[in-house]
């Protein structure tokens, strides 16, 4: 998508967003609540409408385009299922709509997650409902799969199982996955490409490894650190007595400067610091737009 904007009346949800998904990679779509992650995914799946800009998925505009959408599966944060469905009905329906559905895999996942196939969707707990979405998204094997914060109500064990299963199945059946999440630390080993959105703008759109190696936290005596970081992009700084600790980006090499200590920056820290430098008031997010 290129130069995509989305306005709801006075509210600008997306402001000139340009990004490109890489084929057969796992993307982390990161950002705070209300940053525009869901809006991006809605537009890419033809469910929402861009106000301006160019959108192409598999080379065509996705809106009402069966060629594109036949290859897409989009699991939303609170995905709605028909009330009268049982779990097995949802699976059967998803199977009918996805050409590459793997029913054996779906059964295996249902057993592993301990999901009761005969239970009515209405009677599932919040976490179990999320599992239904996760299983459909995985078993669909759709060439382009979106997971929009699919983990609501899932405990840490179930979330880890989701990440493991996603990674294992993805390496056997490569496909393009977009995972939007706040739980950045949890997925940092999973995602290969990072797109960070804040206030409707793209702040980072980069390979995850390159990104990690580019930023570094440097600690040392104030004067030494100051001279090192001069002229570089500072993401964060904190001073304690005579010591200064600064996170900088754009550091290709780590010189052996006396008294300076370098630490790698976690993806989560990088995202948090980058978002803070974008001038967001730190506090509760302003809620999702959906």
């Amino acid at each position, binding site marked *: 998508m290129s130069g995509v904007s989305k306005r709801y009346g006075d509210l600008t949800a997306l402001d000139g967003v340009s990004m490109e998904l890489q084929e057969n990679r796992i993307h982390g779509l990161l950002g705070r609540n209300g940053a525009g992650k869901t809006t991006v995914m*809605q537009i890419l*799946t*033809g*469910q*929402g*409408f861009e106000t301006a800009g160019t959108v192409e998925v598999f080379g065509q505009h996705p809106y*009402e*385009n*069966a060629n594109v*959408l*036949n*290859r*897409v*599966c*989009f*699991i*939303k944060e609170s*995905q*709605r*299922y*028909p*009330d*009268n*469905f*049982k779990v097995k*009905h*949802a699976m*059967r*329906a*998803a199977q*009918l*709509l*996805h050409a590459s559905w793997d029913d054996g895999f779906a059964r295996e996942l249902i057993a592993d997650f301990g999901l009761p196939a005969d239970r009515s969707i209405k009677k599932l707990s919040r976490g179990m409902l999320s599992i239904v979405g996760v299983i*459909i998204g995985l078993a*669909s094997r*759709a060439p382009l799969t979106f997971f929009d914060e699919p983990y609501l109500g899932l405990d840490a064990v179930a979330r880890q199982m989701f990440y493991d299963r996603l990674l294992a199945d993805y390496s056997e059946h490569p496909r393009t996955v977009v995972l939007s999440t706040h739980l950045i630390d949890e997925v940092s080993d999973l995602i290969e490409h990072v797109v960070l959105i804040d206030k409707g703008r793209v702040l980072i759109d980069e390979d995850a490894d390159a990104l990690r190696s580019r930023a570094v936290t440097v600690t040392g005596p104030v004067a030494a650190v100051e001279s090192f970081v001069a002229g570089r992009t500072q993401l964060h700084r904190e001073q304690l007595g005579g010591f200064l600790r600064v996170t900088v980006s754009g550091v290709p090499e780590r010189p052996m400067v006396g008294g300076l200590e370098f630490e790698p920056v976690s993806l989560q820290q990088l995202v948090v610091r980058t978002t803070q430098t974008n001038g967001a008031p730190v506090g509760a997010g302003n809620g999702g737009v959906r």
Partner: protein
Amino acid sequence: MRRVLDVARIQTVNWPWVLAWPVGLLALILVFNIVLFGAIGDAAPPDGRTTGALMSIYFVMLVVHLQTITQMFPFALGMGVTRRTFYAGTALLVTAQAAVYGVVLAALRLVESGTGGWGVGVRFFGLPFLVQSNVFAQWLAYTVPFLAVSAIGVFMGVVFKRWGQPGVYMVSLGSAVVLGGLAVLITWQRWWPAVGSFFTSQSTLVLLTVYPLLIALVLGGAGWLAIRRATP
């Protein structure tokens, strides 16, 4: 076309609930009526042994297809179905369902007249204004109103998805204003006798098929225009 069929099929993956439940409900109400009229015996005169409970299955269809839009539509779009395919699949399902229910009702109406009103002289299916002279006309008289009520349900669902609760209020309020305005206009112009004779001059078959079909087509078309920009 295959995808349209698939969309119709996902709506019936739990067919006992979708297709059999309305008929089951109707059967229950029928049994209840038979028992009731059997129990009160001759207390109800022969021309008073008529019940309007048949309407319940039409109301059920309206609600079922309202939920088709509020619940099935968001699910199907997440699974990569286009709005066009979804709407076509829904239209297909509604038409097939109406046709089958029409056959069921027409058959039950034959049973009813053959058994002297289920043995207790009750008119459950053969309501005076519903009875037609031949089986095909009878089937039409049962089937077409199903299309109309389903279209109303679908249309209200689409309005809700597209414009939310305010949209539903506006449409309800708007139709109340239009109908109320018409009533006022007719009263003011003293047109009621003319309106009455218009309806009595039409055959019940026309009233039960042509006008419901018109409602189904108009609301079906309006629903299509609205769903094209609806977000699930």
